[in-house]
């Protein structure tokens, strides 16, 4: 029998949602600062209005739903899944007010794309967007990459036992440090140190490539935020093609790979345990899958002869591949070129890479390397069982921070999440086909949205059907949260309707 949720459940959920909204308000103050520096008055007003709306909602929720009760697992998961939707709705307000989005739905699409670190965009006339709005687009990627709840946990919530439930709800089931608040702060520390270094590197590269100093460092900061959080937004409409720069491509490729690495691994690297990189199942799997998918992509590209020089083929193929595998979505080709200049084989390589993703406890989406590694190990174990003597005791191990025995429980969990992703990819593909797009284009865009990549072959544009926009928003949201909190929210809604 399903029990209808009690009023107390709703109050707890409302209270913590209100807290997270108030946390989001503080992040909106940063674009105001940028707007004031660049003398952009109307954009400043856009953010003031958004802050006021968010504050009103946040204060009302925390007041009406005030409680001192802690979160249980169900409530924690629901808070997480709802907070992402509310962040999208509130984050879209300044975007829509700028007048660069055709509809509020388009602004919501870009806000979810930003928070979920996807990178698909429906913005119009991006090259004339204000610095404040552009900064906000990239900042939401930075916030979303770390996790909206982690922002609240790190800075606005004092230690409480419900914190870990929300942390897990955001698809982060690994604690780096014993305390989850300390873990969240460590993630921020790593990110901010890399932000400073990355901005400097990209800013200097921009200066050397002839950009104005202010633009060079502004672009550097924006590009870093989107690359490290494997987002994919850029300040200009041409994506990475705007820069015409090898140095930008190299630096962003390094940042994308850093963003795709497990934060726990960052911790080990920082503490001097560099051997872990070469032993960890995730990095080993990542390395192998990059080689395999690049071989597929390169084979496709060499068939066509679009890039006759090997170096050019490598530069174009590898950059697109790293961008897709890490879930970033930076492009050095135009979206239409995927369909016109690349053949199905090369696109298949990119689709595989998008579907696989980076490491768990990183900023990437998709199936992720640990699960691929576990599934591969399970397959190996089963093959051994068939091939070896029945008396033989087969034990399979993998190295992830420490030596771990392969258990059925972890294999089952990995397979379940993989299955969910495959269903999500298929759902988006079917919706694309339903709206009249060819199979390959539908699959490409669906994988890109669900795996939070952001590469586009041209399907995503403001003229696409409203149903498809909703589909991609759902895919980005569910893909980023890795299903569990989404399923719990759906179950909660069913309980409200059908519960007794």
């Amino acid at each position, binding site marked *: 029998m399903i029990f209808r949720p009690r009023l107390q459940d709703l109050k707890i959920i409302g209270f913590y949602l209100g807290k997270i909204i108030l946390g989001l308000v503080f992040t909106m103050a940063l674009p105001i600062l940028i707007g004031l520096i660049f003398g952009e008055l109307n954009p400043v*007003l856009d953010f003031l209005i958004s802050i*006021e709306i968010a*504050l009103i909602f946040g204060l009302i929720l925390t007041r009406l739903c005030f409680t001192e009760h802690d979160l249980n697992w169900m409530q924690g998961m629901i808070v997480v899944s709802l907070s992402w939707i509310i962040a999208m709705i509130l984050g879209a307000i300044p975007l829509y007010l700028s007048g660069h989005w055709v509809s509020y739905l388009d602004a919501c699409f870009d806000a979810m794309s930003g928070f979920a670190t996807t990178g698909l965009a429906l913005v119009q006339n991006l090259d004339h967007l204000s*610095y404040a709005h552009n900064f906000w687009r990239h900042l939401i990627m930075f916030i979303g990459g770390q996790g909206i709840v982690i922002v609240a946990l790190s800075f606005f919530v004092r230690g409480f036992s419900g914190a870990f439930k929300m942390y897990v709800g955001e698809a982060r089931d690994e604690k780096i440090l014993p305390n989850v608040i300390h873990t969240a702060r460590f993630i921020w520390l790593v990110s901010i140190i890399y932000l400073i270094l990355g901005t400097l590197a990209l800013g200097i590269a921009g200066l050397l490539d002839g950009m104005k100093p202010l633009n060079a460092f502004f672009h550097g900061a924006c590009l870093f935020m989107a690359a490290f959080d494997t987002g994919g937004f850029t300040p200009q*409409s041409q994506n990475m093609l705007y820069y015409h720069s090898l140095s930008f491509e190299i630096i962003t490729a390094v940042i994308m790979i850093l963003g795709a690495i497990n934060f726990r691994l960052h911790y080990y690297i920082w503490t001097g345990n560099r051997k872990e990189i070469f032993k960890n199942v995730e990095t080993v799997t990542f390395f192998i899958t990059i080689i395999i998918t690049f071989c597929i992509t390169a084979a496709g590209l060499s068939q066509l002869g679009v890039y006759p020089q090997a170096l050019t083929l490598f530069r174009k193929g590898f950059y697109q591949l790293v961008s897709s595998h890490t879930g970033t979505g930076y492009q050095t080709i135009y979206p239409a070129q995927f369909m016109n200049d690349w053949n199905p084989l090369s696109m298949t390589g990119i689709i595989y890479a998008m579907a696989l993703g980076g490491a768990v406890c990183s900023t990437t989406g998709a199936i992720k390397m640990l699960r691929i590694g576990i599934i591969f190990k399970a397959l190996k174990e089963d093959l051994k069982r068939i091939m070896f003597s029945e008396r033989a005791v087969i034990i399979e191990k993998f190295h992830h921070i420490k030596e771990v025995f392969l258990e059925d429980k972890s294999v089952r969990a990995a397979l379940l999440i993989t299955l969910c992703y495959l269903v999500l990819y298929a759902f988006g593909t079917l919706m694309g086909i339903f709206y009249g797009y060819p199979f390959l284009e539908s699959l490409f865009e669906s994988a890109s949205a669900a795996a939070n990549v952001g590469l586009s072959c041209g399907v995503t544009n403001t003229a696409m059907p409203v149903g498809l926009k909703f589909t991609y928003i759902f895919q980005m949201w569910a893909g980023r949260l890795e299903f569990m909190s989404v399923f719990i929210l759906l179950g909660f809604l069913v309980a409200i309707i059908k519960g007794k």
Partner: protein
Amino acid sequence: MIKFVTVQRSEVNQGVIPAQAGIQRGYDRMDARFHGHDKNGRRELPEAELLLKFRGHRFKPQIAQIVVLSILYFLFFTLSYAQPLSSTELINNAKTYDGKIVVYEGEVIGDVMRRADYVWINLHDGKNALGIWLHKDLAKGILFTGSYKTKGDWLEVQGSLQRACKQHGGDLDIHAQTIKKIRSGRLLQINLNLAKRNLAIFLLGVLCLILFCQSIKA
């Protein structure tokens, strides 16, 4: 609509005749030729027919007309790239235009990025932006680049389209030979949006009211 062009390609390439002017001149000539009358209403023989008669050949006029039409047909296809093409057309048909001389126009956006003796600019025609590689001397006239506060110069560029540029890591770009400023850019006059200001003040009032109510209850 079919546009007939009679200017020499070399003239356009060297920047002697602007592409659009050449096209218009071709129109005028074609009109006169097909109607068989000049601007004063006098009967005018086709140029090729006159030429053949002058040389004393015995070709029939119909054959001469076929020859003239064939030449015009050839010129149409070889010089049609002199018309400004959209970014969508160039990107979608990059294979067709690869290595050909094309004319493209758009607004200069972002930075003019200097690279030794050359510069990169990006021209946005309203749909997409394309990278233009040009000599620094050609870029001297660019005064405004598009941004939030600026409308960039609108340029017409003529150059060769590279589908996968060997010089620039496989980028799709245009190596400019000539550029022409069609419209000068300007600083945009951005006034304070009063509706937004009023909404911000109203919401501030609501917020203060909520805070006041909360402080009373507390």
